[in-house]
């Protein structure tokens, strides 16, 4: 059988037809006079925008050839949560695959269309990736650039080739959405707004973490975030909890209300959404019903020394936990009926239910820490007595007195803390139909959102309004974006850029708030010193005013002769040394009376430092 394609024997003469090609233009380029223009997507030498680069080192981690090393650049003063390391590329190893570009979270690392590198010195083949912004000397404009210049280590500017594209990135820029109660429903009651991740969602969210550990530097307590997230990804919540407890004994609390400094610096957040570190911590604590079983605690050898902790807030609880693990006998005094301190009274129930606080507190109590609740130091027990009977004292008293605006009739206004406390652990406050909240911080948001819920509960179906007035405009409002968005979604009205002038009162009843336009909030030195346009006024109607403009500590329980010895910093914080020790002998301090962050995780960090300090102090005391 023959194929239908007959085999032809071919011709001798027809090949000569090709002779005409002698008279055609050649297809080759006359290099170096003619050069090949690389395509727009060309994968050439690296460019790196040093301003955008966070020094996370993901490029070095993914490089299959280990061509990238992160080099510390001492001239760079890193922004908080960034490193001053920049990638250095060995072109003897680089294969120009561009994986580094596709994994770069801020998108600073790109490949250029440059492909010339001519040099007699082999050392020049390892170089720091820069771009025309940081290296003006070597990047030339297209007119000045030539192959001769290339041999002198010059590159062409504006010559970007293969660049990062979020659509094709190797990391997932979008967060797994957290299931939440919708605004219309949640504003009617105090049910917890955030429902928590399911196992699958948590695993998926945990899988996004690139483990660059920028977050661990940013966290005041330096939690081993990437480790505990990896444990969640590997479906080991108990392992995850063990990692958390190394630095933070309050996962159920922090997993709900932490300020999440880690998420602010997460490299994924540069162009996408940061990893939900806080929700993952919450997931780890929610998954474990019994901490004690999961944590596999080693037996503790008692030292016989006694430490008193004043205040059962996050700082006090943490210092008690860390000291108990070191074998000290710890007693915690608090005037509230339960543990948690400000956590117990501050964050509304829809953010932090009492059960979650008690879960953490009960675990610490189960280790043998003694709690003396309903005991106000200075009233039920004197400070001197504690000071005399214990080997060391930790002050974790926080800021417990609400500040007032001191405008006319401000005595008719409610204060934030009593309002929150009464609603969370008391009987509840009878609210008005039209509430004005003064303040733009997170406490003001809590107050406003709580007030709104109370309005809906107390006046079902009626028209009710809650509005806020803050000195700060949108761009500098101290509350977190998340809080502001959620408050807006629930229907809170905002009046940013206005300051209170007078609370109008008629027949002993509040009628509204007279406001004046803010000129500036901070002075040249960046200190809080608001100025106003006195003549530009606005009147807000309302039958209830709540002030939420910050708190101050109350040191009245410390006797005068001791208090006089207590030193303060220029910013009116208690002065401590690197071990958390105050100027008073055997007194340590931490939390809001010491730091400027005024949040739980910083209090925990202070507590950890103080626990080490107390341990050192008492061991040296021997």
């Amino acid at each position: 059988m023959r194929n239908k394609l007959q085999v032809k024997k071919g011709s001798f003469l027809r090949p000569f037809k090709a002779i005409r090609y002698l008279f055609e233009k050649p297809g080759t380029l006359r290099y170096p006079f003619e050069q090949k223009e690389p395509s727009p997507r060309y994968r050439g030498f690296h460019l790196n925008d040093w301003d955008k680069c966070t020094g996370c080192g993901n490029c070095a981690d993914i490089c299959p050839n280990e061509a990238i090393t992160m080099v510390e650049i001492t001239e760079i003063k890193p922004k908080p949560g960034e490193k001053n390391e920049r990638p250095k590329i060995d072109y003897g190893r680089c294969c120009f695959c561009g994986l580094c570009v596709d994994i770069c979270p801020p998108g600073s690392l790109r490949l250029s269309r440059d492909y010339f590198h001519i040099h007699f010195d082999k050392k020049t083949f390892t170089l720091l990736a820069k771009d025309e912004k940081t290296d003006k000397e070597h990047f030339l404009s297209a007119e000045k650039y030539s192959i001769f210049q290339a041999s002198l280590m010059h590159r062409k500017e504006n010559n970007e080739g293969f660049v990062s594209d979020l659509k094709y990135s190797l990391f997932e820029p979008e967060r797994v959405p957290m299931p939440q109660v919708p605004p219309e429903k949640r504003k009617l009651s105090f049910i917890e707004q955030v429902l928590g991740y399911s196992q699958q969602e948590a695993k998926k969210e945990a899988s996004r973490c690139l483990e660059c550990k920028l977050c661990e530097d940013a966290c005041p307590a330096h939690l081993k975030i990437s480790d505990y997230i990896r444990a969640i990804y590997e479906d080991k919540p108990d392992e995850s909890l063990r990692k958390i407890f190394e630095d933070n004994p309050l996962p159920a609390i922090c997993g709900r209300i932490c300020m999440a400094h880690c998420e602010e610096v997460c490299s994924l957040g540069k162009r996408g959404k940061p990893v939900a570190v806080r929700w993952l911590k919450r997931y780890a604590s929610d998954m474990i019903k019994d901490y004690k079983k999961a944590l596999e605690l080693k037996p503790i050898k008692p030292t016989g020394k006694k430490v008193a902790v004043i205040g059962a807030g996050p700082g006090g609880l943490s210092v008690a936990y860390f000291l108990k693990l070191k074998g000290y006998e710890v007693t915690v005094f608090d005037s509230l009926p339960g543990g948690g301190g400000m956590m117990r009274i501050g964050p509304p129930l829809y953010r932090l239910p009492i059960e979650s606080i008690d879960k953490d507190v009960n675990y610490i109590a189960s280790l043998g820490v003694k709690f003396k609740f309903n005991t106000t130091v200075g009233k039920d027990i004197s400070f001197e007595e504690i000071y005399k009977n214990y080997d060391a004292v930790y002050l974790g008293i926080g800021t417990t007195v609400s500040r007032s605006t001191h405008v006319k009739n401000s005595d008719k206004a409610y204060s934030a803390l009593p309002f929150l406390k009464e609603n969370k652990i008391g009987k509840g406050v009878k609210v008005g139909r039209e509430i004005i909240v003064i303040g733009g911080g997170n406490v003001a948001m809590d107050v406003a959102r709580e007030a709104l819920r109370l309005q809906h509960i107390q006046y079902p179906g009626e028209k009710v309004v809650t509005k806020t007035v803050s000195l700060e405009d949108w761009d500098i409002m101290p509350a977190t974006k998340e809080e502001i968005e959620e408050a807006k979604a629930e229907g809170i009205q905002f009046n940013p850029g206005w300051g209170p002038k007078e609370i109008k009162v008629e027949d002993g009843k509040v009628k509204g708030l007279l406001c004046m336009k803010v000129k500036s909030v901070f002075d040249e030195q960046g200190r809080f010193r608001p100025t106003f346009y006195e003549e530009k006024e606005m009147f807000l109607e309302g039958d209830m005013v709540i002030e939420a403009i910050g708190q101050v500590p109350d040191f009245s329980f410390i006797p005068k002769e001791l208090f006089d010895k207590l030193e303060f910093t220029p910013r009116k914080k208690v002065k401590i040394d690197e071990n958390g020790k105050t100027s008073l002998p055997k007194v340590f301090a931490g939390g809001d009376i010491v730091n400027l962050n005024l949040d739980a995780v910083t209090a925990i960090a202070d507590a950890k430092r103080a626990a080490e300090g107390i341990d050192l102090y008492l061991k040296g005391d021997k």
Partner: protein
Amino acid sequence: MKTERELELYFGPQHIGMVGNFSITLKVEGDRIIEASANPGYLHRGFEKLMEYRTWIQNFPMVCRINVIEPDSMEMVYAMAVEKLAKIEVPERANYIRTIVLELARLTSHLFGCWAYANMLGFDTVAQWAMYHRDLLLDLFEELTGARVYHIYIWPGGVRRDIPKGFKDRVLNTLHTIGSCIPDYDNTFFNNRLFYKRAKNIGKISKDEAKKLGATGQILRAAGIKYDIRKVEPYAVYDKVNFEIPTREDGDAYSRVWVIRDEMIQSVHIIMQCFEKMPQGEVYNRVPNPFKWKIPKGETYVRVESSRGELGLYLVSNGEDKPYRVHFRTPSYPHGLIILEKLLKNASIADVGNIMISLYVVAPEIDR
């Protein structure tokens, strides 16, 4: 029995007639070859072992390097295996782009083959044309992927970037430029009497022998067996486009080169159909975070029709972030070691390069 006239002759790795890092040790008597033994190993880079030490994504820039001439089918076979084990879907559009890339790669590879063969036989003009036309295709690859040779473009979940604006027109223009030279190629090379004389009845292999020795690709098709993975076990969108499998009956070098020529024309048809049918949409389903990506335990064998025959990959995952075992079944392995040795028996020394290149042996595929 060794006679006195018997002589050992080393053909390669440094030899004018040798293409690639490969060597053949010949036992000759006069001009006749009594025995030939292929001697690979000059290019051994241990890829299969290296891949066990790199994560699933880090293997991508490496896998294409196994075959310099046609990296895309290597990328494709690895992507297919990973997708099968990790159960990743590929968007429809990505499959069309993959097919276009694979066919462009086949053209590049075949043109390179034409260059090698024409060059070997002394048809320098044709060789230069083929090289030039291959370069035009590399320009297209550069535009699409950012690199000329190692594209690192097809990867799990789809392809790395969508096709740029106006790419279709440029592909069709280039294909037109090359296509318009087919008569010249025919006149100068394929239908050249000198080529016929030089290649006819050289390196002849029968149907049965080809089957028995594990031949695939052109060798099998030139011997009259219509076998092509693209038809037998369609991947990408080969089941959605029409194309022929060119075959010949004689099984000699001449037939093999004609099969290559006809295949190139089929490739052009496939590319045109793909551009016509290609839907809009996504081209990439994101794979998990490369630092945490673990693929469930399992093993798989996938195969594609590369430009030289069946390219297979046996991939085992132990549930870790790196492969447990990687093994490639490359077409050049049986062609370059078993069939070559067989065909060289009783051939003349002048035909060694002729036969070797007509078998389309690419040494890097043998030494992985």
